[in-house]
Structure formats: C-alpha cells, structure tokens
C-alpha cells in the first residue's frame, strides 16, 4: 500500500503542477513553449520510482513530470518557469530545459531524438568505470522516426550500454498521428530488431509501468544490455499552449480520459483507500504548489550583467 500511495502522490503532484502551469500561462506569468504531461503521469512516476539516486535521467521538452518524479524540487522547477535565478536552470532553460546535477537529471532536450546519443554516452562512462548504473532516457514515438533513434539503438545494443529507453508513445508527434508517421506499427518490434530487449506496456497503468521498469532495470544492472519500453500513453491536453487540436477528435480524448492513470490507481486502492486520504494528498500537494508559486513570484531575476555567464566554464582546470 505504501508503494501505491507513493505512486499516487507523485502522479497527483505532477497533474496539479501541470494544471497550475496552464493557469499561470493563461495569466502570462509563464511564457515560451509549455508542453504539459497531463495524462502521461504514470510513465514518469512508474519508471523513475525504480531508479537509484546514482542512476541518470535524460528527458525531452515535455520534462516537468520527469523532473518532479526524479526529485528536482518543485520550487526550483516553478521558478524556472518564471525565468528566475532560483530556477533549476537559473532561468536560462525554461519549461523545456530543466536540469539538476544533484539529481543526475541531465535535462530536457528539445531536439527530438537529441537526448538519445547523450544517454548512450552517459551509460558508456558508467560501463568504462564499472559502475552498475542505469540511464533512463525518455523520448516520444516521434523520435523513433529520427535517425538518432536508429543510430543509438544500434550503438547501445552493440556495446551493451546500460540504457533504459523509455518511448512514451502518446500517439501523436505534435499533431501527426502515429499511423501517418510510421510505416510499421510495432515500436517494440522495431527496437528488438536492433538486438535489445523491448516490449510494450500499458502506460496508463502505473503499476504495470513500475513492474516493467523493475524487470528492465534489474536486467540492465545485471549486465543484460539495454532495454526499450514502449509506454502506450496519451496526452489529454494540447501539444503546447498554441495547439488548437485540429488533428484529433474530442471523442478520442474522452475515451482516453476514461483510462486516467490516477483514477485507475485509486480504483485499485479501494476500498481501503478513502476519500479522506485522497483529500489529504490533494491538500498536501496544493500547499507544495502554492509555496512553489509564491516563492517563484518573489524570487530574483538573474542580473542582466550575468547574461554571458556559463557560455564557458568559470573554473579553470
């Protein structure tokens, strides 16, 4: 039950954080691109719950859920949305580029597929030092059409690099439906053709995600080489705040909302789990988000005189 509660709390944190971000975007306190993770929470919560602190995470431009699940403090994530110096990237990254070295969170990469080679290299370093670490690399099914997907799966399988490839298949590459982008439908089959273990998972079922992530990370840590999970999920909201959603039917969204990963986990936890307990989680999360917004609002901006800091390192060798 403790495990279920932790997963539920994490998904609720992400969901409510995203909803607050949408409000803050509407009131123009957050700008730039904002890609929300609503509907996909089971993937981040389930996978990241199986990682150790010394493992590494590589994410995409839809990175809030991964960062929060990884333990990047919500205050720092929200401050980054506000472009403040207290943000986890000192206001230089914004929504798409959350980073946190202390949590080995190697950032949201907004070039589709661009994080995969980096993940391979992080894993190569682990191999060369003999460290039994896993690199979890998140990307969408759109990235499976990029050359880097194919290059990196081949390289990772060839060198048996300890990478857990997490393909979040939310069925749309921005607005392009899966069937309009991929000639062959089975991503796990495609991945396995490169010589790595790969299978599909119901990405709306956090317990299934966690169980698959556990099996995969155990295998990887035991020296079994990389794995790929195709996590079948769905984004309930628009691709970004600019997306009028012309490419999908409302009925389809409604159908997927019936598979809401939070509701499904709550169902599993009934009847022992009560409304009061759920209310307590919601209240706790609400306090955390309020605090994050309040501190972000009052935080300082990076002085413009520091604009060109960090283009090159400040520490000499």
């Amino acid at each position, binding site marked *: 039950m403790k495990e279920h509660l932790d997963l539920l709390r994490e998904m609720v944190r992400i969901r409510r954080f995203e909803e607050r971000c949408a409000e803050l975007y509407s009131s123009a306190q957050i700008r730039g691109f904002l890609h929300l993770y609503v509907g996909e929470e089971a993937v981040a919560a389930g996978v990241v719950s199986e990682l150790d602190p010394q493992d590494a995470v590589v994410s995409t431009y839809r990175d809030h859920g991964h960062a929060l699940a990884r333990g990047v403090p919500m205050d720092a994530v929200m401050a980054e949305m506000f472009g403040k110096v207290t943000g986890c990237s000192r206001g230089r990254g914004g929504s798409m580029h959350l980073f946190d070295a202390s949590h080995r969170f190697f950032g949201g990469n907004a070039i589709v597929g*661009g994080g995969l080679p*980096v993940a391979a290299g992080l894993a190569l370093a682990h191999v060369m030092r003999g460290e039994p670490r896993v690199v979890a690399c998140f990307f969408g099914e759109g990235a499976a059409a990029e050359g880097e997907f194919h290059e990196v799966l081949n390289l990772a399988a060839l060198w048996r690099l300890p990478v857990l490839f997490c393909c979040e298949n939310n069925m749309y590459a921005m607005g392009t439906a899966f069937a309009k982008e991929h000639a062959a439908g089975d991503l796990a089959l495609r991945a396995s053709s490169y010589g790595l273990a790969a299978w599909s998972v119901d990405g709306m079922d956090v317990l299934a995600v966690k169980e698959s992530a556990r099996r995969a990370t155990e295998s990887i840590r035991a020296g079994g080489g990389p794995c790929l999970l195709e996590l079948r999920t769905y984004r309930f909201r628009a691709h970004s705040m600019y997306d009028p959603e012309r490419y999908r039917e409302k009925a389809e969204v409604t159908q997927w909302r019936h598979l809401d990963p939070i509701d499904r986990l709550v169902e599993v936890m009934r009847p022992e789990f009560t409304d009061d307990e759920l209310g307590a989680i919601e209240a706790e999360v609400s306090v955390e988000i309020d605090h994050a917004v309040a501190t972000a609002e009052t935080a300082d901006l990076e002085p413009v005189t520091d604009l060109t800091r*960090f283009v090159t390192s400040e520490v000499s060798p």
Partner: protein
Amino acid sequence: MKTTYREALREAIRDAMNRDDRVFLMGEDVGSYGGCYAVSLGLLEEFGPERIRDTPLSESAFVGAGIGAALNGMRPIVEVMTVNFSLLALDQILNNAATLLHMSGGQFPVPVVIRMTTGAGRQLAAQHSHSLEGWYAHIPGLRVLAPATLEDARGMLWPALCDPDPVLIFEHNALYNLSGELADDAGPVDLTRAAVRRPGTDVTLITYGGSLAKTLTAADELAADGIDAEVIDLRTLRPLDADTFLESVRRTHRAVVVDEGWRSGSLSAEIAARIAEEALYELDAPVRRVCSAEVPIPYAKHLEEAALPQPASIAAAAREVVRGG
C-alpha cells in the same frame, strides 16, 4: 627528433591516454584500420579496444556519446573523419556540446574534444574537401583550434582535454605528411594566443591551418620583391586572439586575410570586421581577403588548385595592398 604532423598527433593522443585514465579515443576506423589518416595507427594494440573504440558509421550517435561520456566524468577524444561528415553530428555539437552548460545555468560542462580533418588539396572532391571550421567558430561555447605546425599538432591536445568545455580540433589534410624537427621534450602549448610565424614590417598576412605554409611561401616571394611581410597564424579560431593581429596591423598598416573557407559570411569576414572596428584609421589600404572560390571544391587537379588560395594569389593580394595594385 625528426617527426611528422601525423606522428605528432599520435604522440599527443598516446601521451594523454597515459596521463589520464578518463581519456579514450572513439570514431570511425580509429582502431583496427588505424585511422582514416593513420593518426591512431598502433594505438589499439597499445591501449586495447575499451579505450580505442571503433564506432559504427553513426556520426550523431558517437559524437553525442562523446558528449554524454564527457558530461559523466570521462575525457573523450572523438575523431570524425572529415568536417563534411561532421554535419551529420552538427545537432549534437551545437545543440548539446556548445549549449548545455549555459542552458543548465552552469551545471553541466562538456569537456569533450572532437578532432576532424578539414580542407582541400588532395583531389577528394566536394564532399571531403571543405573548410567549415569558420562555421564552428561562429558558435559560442566552443573552442576551435587549427594546429598548423608540428609543435601545435603535438601540444594542443592536452590543454584541449584540460579545458572544461568542448574543443574542436581541425587538422588540415595537407598537413599530415608535414615533416620536420620537433624537440624531444615538446609538450603542451598555449591555446590563447595567435603566433607570429614570420616577423615583418610592410604588411600583415593573417592565416591559419593548411594555408599557413602557402602564406609563408608567399612571404618568401614577397621578400624577393622587397616586401617584408609579417605572417600571423591564428592557431585558435575561437575565441580569436584579436590583440595579436591588431597589434601587427597597427605596425604594418596593411592586412591580407588568407582563409581556405568561402569568402561570404566567413572567418575572414570576421577578421576583416575586427580590423575595421578596431584599427580602421591605422590602415593605409583596404583589407584584402584571399579565400576559396565560391564553388563546391571540384575533383580535377587544375580546377581544385584554381579554387584554393595559392602562394601566387596571396602574394598578389599583398602587393596590391602595399603598392596599390
């Protein structure tokens, strides 16, 4: 000792591998084949396949893997066969290597070294012959080196590996067989300063990499005409050591920039602009540029030679600025 540019590069890699366990070399055919230009010949036998890693033909994957390994505590040397092929990894070099430190607010330096061949002169045609180092020199966050001498071939790698940020090293393909004397104790060199390769008083010839030898030849021709040319080797293309060439131009009052890249939007344009911004009133003649013709570099020998800066065209440009054409 007598050595070659190729051997000096190899000795630099060997030295770095011996000094630091975190250093390894990876790229296409660096191991069993010995390197496309035989730079790493014998290193596989010496250091083994873990540290001399042959990669698949996947430039983006292995350059990105170098970046990832660098982010995670290693000191990779990534070899890309030619600058033309590096375009397949441009996303990784620009969007990750050059960007992550700043975009992460200073959390993630990327101490990777990426070596590649550049330049024309061996009749390899348009997809193996271009000089695109000027493009890379456009990018904040990168250090861009162009060793033109045995000393720099031997001495630039170690300080590049010590740099906490990404360094690109461009080796002109015409230089690999360059031979000469190198001190037995030759070691690391300063990466921050351009070098005066030939002192002179009448005109400053500013160049780098594969054009240095041609420019020195042109300077000899000019000397026979009574023109005393100073030749500056930029060595580091980013960040530029403008002080050295500006100081020279203020003395000679004349400047010719020699750059094997194309003229439009080029490194030569940047240097000319710096001179215009900082020393315009010191000039006795307009700055001239000798660059490659604006064509894809052709195969046929006579066409390739006509496309590239040559001692004669460099000397002609220098005479023009000294004597008014």
